Structures are given as structure tokens and as C-alpha cells.
């Protein structure tokens, strides 16, 4: 029998052929490899959310191996001496065990918590990017809605997660959550009693939160994230305006290899930063809080940052109780408005915003080009108003700490929050609107008259004027032409024009030699360099 020669080099090609024979993947794979992605630093904010979600899944699975979601009373006998002999729930005891008796458990717990905070933070910042640049407009309203839902589902994931350890702080949070549910008119007591199986705290809420936190909510998150990414893929990413970029094309890099490599590298960087935070910065030191006891709380009990705005709204709410004198009398407690109605309104506004704006502007067109925030003053100002509202509430969520640290009266802080919540957002609207108009005007000015050179010339009659470098060659009446604004950065410094050489790069010391200065300040080299002739594109885009 003749022995066939085995050719190693031909294996990949042969395998590929065999795969394509069966699954016909060559053409779709080519399309995937070739897909073009536009690039800008602000497009990476959503990636941070995605990557921290991956870290959440990885560390979360680790934690499930050791956590016991039960409220059975046990006596702690682990290695953390100060709590030894204390009766506590099995959930809290196993959380302590993860922190002290599982080797490397503490860093996993802290990484899990930090990545949750980072997940929510990057969702918010990503959402602001999408909002302020108009990326939510048609055809991307669906993805905006999914993104908004992701914030609220993430909020639930966070709350159910940090309630699990059943420590003194999270138990207080759970107590407040039960009061919030109780405050809902008509169904409040039934809802609370059904969720807690009786009166607060009951004996089952930790197990119920556990299954929600490790299965139901993550399942929902995975589903929403998949659709979110799928839609970005299908609808293709938005891009900034600029040379060669139109509403009908995508200008950028093909997905492989450079773009994918950068994504992979960025994932590892996010992962690394979370690891550093999880190791170096302590978070949620549950062993200081002790087990949850209904009669113990300390000052400065704050929830995680993304819940603080609700805590703040609760603190600022005046004690307005609505009494309905029918029969024995019914009550709508003041807690209902800031914790159920307000979030409801916020969800509604955020979900509807793309449609409200399109309706207001009678805008039915497809938009694939982003807008600079200054070019849409009304939206930018509205966004600034929303951010101010959120910040006032969040700060009010910590008003006792602020009062304590800065020696301010606590009641004065509450009143400052109440008044600030009404006055600051409209003020932010006005200021932002004016800033946008000012920035617009400056762009137009530079396009019409050119860039300030810093060269002062004395005229024969004694006046001093600054010499401007026009951006276009002269064919207008006074020697230079007016350029149209194209919705992208207008160069405002001489080095952006190539007249002074590029800005010197480097962090501590220049990475490149500074370009030679012009021979005489009186004779600036007005001829732009050949490779920098395209006005309107940032240097890094070239």
C-alpha cells in the first residue's frame, strides 16, 4: 500500500475548504472581515460598558460557587475574629467567608462590585454621548430605547446584587425598598407582602433576589445587549461629518485586523483597570457594617452611586401626605412621589425623547452623521438641564455627609437641594444655550476671517490689529473667501493649519522634535504643507 504524504502546510486551506463545503461561510465571512467601522474616541464609551459586563459575568460566576443565598440564622465562626460568635444570616456569613476564608475571594468580590459601578457609569456616559451628538435619531430610535432600558435593568441588577450580602447597610436599603413598594396606592401592601412573603424582612427575600440577580436579570441584560449590538452592526455606526463622509457612507477602518486588535487591547485595558481597582481600592467592606438588624443604622448610609439620585429625591421631598377621607381613610405617603412617580416619569421621557424631538422638528429623514452639541443648542441645553437635575439629586443623596464634612447645617443642605432642584436646571439650560451660540459664532468668525496668528500689526494711523490667517485662498472682495460650515471642527490654531508645525506630542517630554519656528515672525509661512491641506479634518484622522 502506498503511503500518502501528509502535507502540513495544506491543512488550513483544506480545512477551510471542508468547512465552506458544508456551511457556505466564505462570502459572509468576507463581508464580516471587510466591514468598515468609523473611529472616534467617544465611540469607545459603550465598549467600556460591554467589557465591564463581561467582567461582571466572569467574577459573578466565581462568587456563586461560595455564596449561600439563605436567611437561616447561623453563628459566625470564620476567621474574622471581631464578628466570631455573632448570630447572623447564612447569606452574610457566606459573604464574610468569601471575603476572608476563600483564597482570592475578596478580590473577586471587589472586582465584581467595581465593575458593576463602572458598568453603570459607562452606560450613563455612553448615553450622554449618544444624546448630545444626536446619534439616537432615525433610524436608531429602537437602539436608544434598548439602551435606556439597559440602564434601568442594570439599576435593578445592581440593587438586587448589593442587597445579597445581607449586611447592615444593604439591609437598610432593602428596608427602604420595602417601604417604597408599600407606598404604592391600593396595591402597595399586597405587593410588598407577596415579594417578601409576609412582613419585612421575612425569610425568603434573599433567595428571591438571588435568582433574580444571577439568572433572570442577567438573562434580560444579555438579551438586550445582544439586540443592541446586533442593531449597531446592522444599521452601521454613525460617524462624525468630515472630508469624504456623507450620510450614505461609512468612512473608517475595516474590522480586521486593526480595528479588532484595538478592541481586544481595549478590553484587556478595561479588565486590567478593574483588577487594579478591585485589588487596591476597598469597596463595600461588609465586615464593618455587621449583620442586618432592624434597629441599627449609622449616619452616612449611602447606596451605590447610581441609586443615590433616588435617595436624594426622597430626602428633598416635602412631607406632603395625601389623605383620602373615604371609609376608614386612605393615604398616599410622601415617599410615593420621589421613588415611584419620579423614576416613572424619567423612564417615560427617556424612552420617548427621540420621537418627541423628531415630532417637534418635523424631522423624518435618516441621520447617519453626528451633530456637534453646539450646533443643536436646544437639545444640548435640555441635556445640560437633565444632567444638572441628576447631579443636584445625587449630591442631595449625600447631603448628610456634605453637611458633616463642610460643617454646614443639615437642614440648610436640604433646603439648598430643594431650591437648587428648581432653579439650577433652567439656569443650566440658559447658560448652555448661550455657550452653544457663542461657540457657533466663533466658528463662523474663523471661517470668515481666518485664524488668529498672534501677530500684531500697527497700521499707519496708529491702530493695532491682529493679523488673521484666512482658511481659504482669496477670491472674495477683501482678499479672502468665506467658507461654509460643514459641521465639523474648525481649525483655530496656527499649528492646526500646518503653519507652525504640529502640536508637540508627548506626555513628560516631546516624542518628536518640535518643528522649526518660522524664520521671522513678520513672515509666517502661510503656504500650508501639502499633506495637511484638508481643512476640517482633525489631524489624527489623516
Amino acid at each position: 500500500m502506498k503511503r500518502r504524504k501528509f502535507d502540513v502546510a495544506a491543512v488550513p486551506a483544506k480545512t477551510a475548504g471542508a468547512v465552506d463545503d458544508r456551511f457556505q461561510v466564505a462570502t459572509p465571512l468576507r463581508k464580516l472581515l471587510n466591514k468598515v467601522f468609523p473611529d472616534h474616541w467617544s465611540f469607545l464609551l459603550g465598549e467600556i460598558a460591554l467589557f465591564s459586563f463581561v467582567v461582571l459575568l466572569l467574577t459573578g460566576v466565581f462568587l456563586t460557587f461560595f455564596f449561600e443565598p439563605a436567611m437561616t440564622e447561623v453563628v459566625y465562626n470564620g476567621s474574622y475574629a471581631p464578628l466570631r460568635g455573632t448570630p447572623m444570616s447564612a447569606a452574610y456569613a457566606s459573604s464574610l467567608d468569601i471575603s476572608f476564608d476563600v483564597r482570592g475571594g475578596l478580590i473577586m468580590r471587589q472586582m465584581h462590585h467595581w465593575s458593576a459601578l463602572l458598568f453603570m457609569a459607562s452606560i450613563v456616559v455612553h448615553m450622554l454621548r449618544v444624546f448630545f451628538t444626536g446619534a439616537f435619531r432615525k433610524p436608531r430610535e429602537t437602539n436608544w430605547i434598548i439602551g435606556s432600558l439597559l440602564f434601568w435593568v442594570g439599576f435593578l441588577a445592581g440593587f438586587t446584587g448589593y442587597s445579597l450580602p445581607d449586611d447592615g447597610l444593604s439591609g437598610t436599603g432593602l428596608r427602604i425598598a420595602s417601604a417604597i413598594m408599600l407606598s404604592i396606592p391600593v396595591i402597595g401592601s399586597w405587593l410588598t407582602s407577596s415579594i417578601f412573603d409576609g412582613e419585612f424582612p421575612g425569610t425568603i427575600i434573599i433567595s428571591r433576589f438571588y435568582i433574580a440577580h444571577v439568572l433572570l436579570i442577567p438573562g434580560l441584560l444579555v438579551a438586550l445587549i445582544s439586540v443592541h449590538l446586533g442593531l449597531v452592526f446592522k444599521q452601521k455606526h454613525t460617524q462624525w461629518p468630515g472630508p469624504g463622509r456623507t450620510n450614505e457612507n461609512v468612512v473608517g477602518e475595516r474590522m480586521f485586523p486593526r480595528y479588532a486588535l484595538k478592541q481586544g487591547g481595549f478590553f484587556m485595558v478595561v479588565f486590567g483597570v478593574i483588577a487594579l481597582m478591585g485589588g487596591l481600592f476597598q469597596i463595600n467592606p461588609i465586615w464593618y457594617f455587621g449583620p442586618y438588624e432592624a434597629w441599627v443604622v449609622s449616619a452616612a448610609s449611602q447606596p451605590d452611586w447610581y441609586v443615590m439620585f433616588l435617595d436624594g429625591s426622597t430626602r428633598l421631598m416635602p412631607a406632603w401626605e395625601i389623605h383620602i377621607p373615604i371609609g376608614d381613610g386612605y393615604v398616599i405617603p410622601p415617599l410615593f412621589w420621589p421613588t415611584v412617580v419620579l423614576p416613572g416619569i424619567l423612564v417615560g421621557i427617556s424612552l420617548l425623547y427621540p420621537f418627541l424631538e423628531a415630532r417637534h422638528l418635523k424631522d423624518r429623514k435618516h441621520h447617519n452623521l453626528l451633530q456637534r452639541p453646539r450646533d443643536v443648542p436646544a437639545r444640548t441645553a435640555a441635556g445640560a438641564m437633565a444632567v444638572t437635575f441628576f447631579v443636584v439629586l445625587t449630591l442631595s443623596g449625600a447631603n448628610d455627609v456634605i453637611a458633616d464634612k463642610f460643617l454646614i447645617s443639615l437642614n440648610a443642605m436640604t433646603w439648598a437641594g430643594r431650591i437648587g432642584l428648581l432653579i439650577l436646571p433652567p439656569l443650566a439650560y440658559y447658560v448652555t444655550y448661550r455657550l452653544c451660540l457663542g461657540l457657533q459664532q466663533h466658528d463662523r468668525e474663523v471661517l470668515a476671517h481666518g485664524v488668529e496668528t498672534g501677530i500684531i500689526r500697527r497700521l499707519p494711523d496708529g491702530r493695532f490689529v491682529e493679523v488673521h490667517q484666512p482658511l481659504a485662498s482669496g477670491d472674495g472682495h477683501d482678499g479672502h473667501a468665506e467658507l461654509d460650515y460643514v459641521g465639523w471642527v474648525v481649525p483655530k490654531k496656527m499649528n492646526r493649519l500646518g503653519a507652525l508645525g504640529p502640536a508637540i506630542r508627548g506626555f513628560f517630554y516631546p516624542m518628536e522634535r518640535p518643528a522649526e519656528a518660522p524664520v521671522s515672525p513678520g513672515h509666517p509661512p502661510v503656504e500650508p504643507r501639502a499633506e495637511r491641506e484638508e481643512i476640517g479634518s482633525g489631524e489624527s484622522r489623516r
Partner: protein
Amino acid sequence: MSTHTEHPAPQGRQPLDVLDPRVSRFDIVLEGARRDDIEIVHYEPQVVPGSKAERRLTRTVASFFLLTGLAATAFLVIYIWWPWQWEPGRGGDKYYTPLLGLTLGVALLGIGFGILTWGKKLLPKEVSIQDRHDQPGAPEDRKITGETMLYLADEMGVRRRPLLGVSLVAGLLPVGAVAAAPLVGGLISQPHKNNQMFTTGFAPADGHKVRLVREDGRPIRPADISAGGQLTVFPGIEHGVSNRHADSPTLLIHLRESDAVASREANARVGHGDYMWGNYAAFSKICTHAGCPASLYEQQTNRLLCPCHQSQFLITDNARPVFGPASRRLPQLPIEVDEEGFFVAKSDYTETVGPDFWERP
């Protein structure tokens, strides 16, 4: 930096024969891109092969990867040999988690920056343009799809045979309810069984008045609290000091003489004339706002502050809310001293304890 090297000349649209062995690999890539409506308009290597810059960047990337190997090894060494069990004091175990974080972080950042440098600095830069093709389908296509779907309905014949539709809906609605039934039925819990929302552990059992006890279960004599002092007390029943009676924790306050007078007057105004015993008054510790323990007692002003949302209650005025979001006073527990000289509750709270809800009378 030149923009014109390697610039693919815009060739016409004649298809390239990719099977021709003379065609370069890059030309095949260009042809593939063209087939996906992509034009690579700018393609420029960032480093000249074999140049000093390339060698330097290669060394940078390599050292990032080697740093990762080093840090990961350090992680393993620390993980295995560093003392990690908690000890009192400032032992080496306090550095276990920080060291793990540092080494893991450096290892991951090493791979990250290595890959980023590789991708950003060593790979050629390019600018490609792809058509979006996000125009809606042609009217004809839309029509065809729409008609196909309508034809499906025709085939089903629901319109001609309405009984099918009606009976299907009538049959499926209960199935939906069946799916929901176990969930709702299993979870639902009557909130008012045993009148639980209106009673606490202080309700007298079998005619016996319930003692006020400390956290360790010991009963309390009036002499145990000095004037101006306060103590958290619990019902002296089984599991009274536990979360099973989460709405029972009570604050027993020994008021100073002048405050006690004011307090008694206030009591009398609301018909609680006999709720205090001597200068001692007991109020629910569970905030009527959101249920946190209102535990910060300011002796000078007789205000009780809840640290969760800063509701403040004036103890000498029936614990009326004077600031913050709480709208209802803290319920007062009527107390007296039994024949053995220990505090007991005369009866349960006469107002609803804890956060407010719809059907509170």
C-alpha cells in the same frame, strides 16, 4: 509621511481574475473589498520594514507581553505563598488582596497595551469607505412582502371562517391565565393575616403585659437610664430581639424634668395622658417615612433624627415630624412599671408602626 505610496489606483470596474496566480494577495483583498462596496482610499504602512522604528516598536510590544508574563507569574507566586488568612493587626495578610490586584492589573494592562501598540503603531493605517445601503426596500419589494403576508392570512381563511379565530382566542386566553396562575398564586400573600401590619411584639399575650428588654434580653429598671439618656428596647418575648420583629424596636427615653413636663402636656393634648411613666417615654424607633431606625437622638433639642433621609421628630411634642420627608409622628408605646420594678408595655402601640401605606386608617 507620504500619502501617495501604496495608494491603490482607482481602477475601472473590470472584475479582477482572482484565480490568476500573478495577482498579488493585496489585490485580491482590494477586489474582495470592492465586492462589499468598500473602497480602500488610503493605505499606508506606518513603519518601513526593517527600519529602526519597526525594531523599536517590536521591542516595545514584546516587552509589554513579557511584562504580562512576569506579572502573571508574580500573581501565582503571591496567590500560593503569601500569607492570606486574616489576622488581627497589620500583618502581611492585609497586603494579599492589593498585591493580587496589582499583579493581575499589570498583567492585563500589559496584554492590553501590547495589543494596542501592535494594532495602532505597527499595522498599516487605512481609510476605507463603505456604502451604507440603508435605503428602505424598493416599493415593489415592500409590496411583494406585504402581499405575501396577507396571502398567508387568506390561506388560513380566518376571514371566511370567523369561528376559528374566535374559538382560538377563547381557547388561548385561559391558557395565558394558566401560565400566570402558579406564579401569581404562589407568590401572593395576604398582607393582613394575623393583623400583622398593625401589631408588634408588644401586644400582650394571654393577658400578660410584655416587658421591655435590652438587646441581651435583660429587663430594665427605671434607675438603669439616667436623665437625658435613652436606650433601644425590645419586646421581652421569644425572638423579640431579632429581625422577626423588625417593627418592634423602641426607644426608651428618660426625659429631664422640664422636658418631661412639656412632653406630658403634649401627650394630654392628643389623649395619650397616661402613656408616659414618670419622666420616661417610649417611641417606636422605626421611622414612619421609610422604615429605617430613627436612631440619632439629640439630647439638647430633644430631636430624633433618622439618618436615612433626615426626617426629624420632636420627642417633647409627641415625636411630631418637624423637618424632612416624614409626614407622620412616631407612635408612642404606653409604658408602666410592673410589681417587680421592670418596665412593661401597658398595651401594644395604638398607632400603626413603620412606613405608611394605602389602607392605614
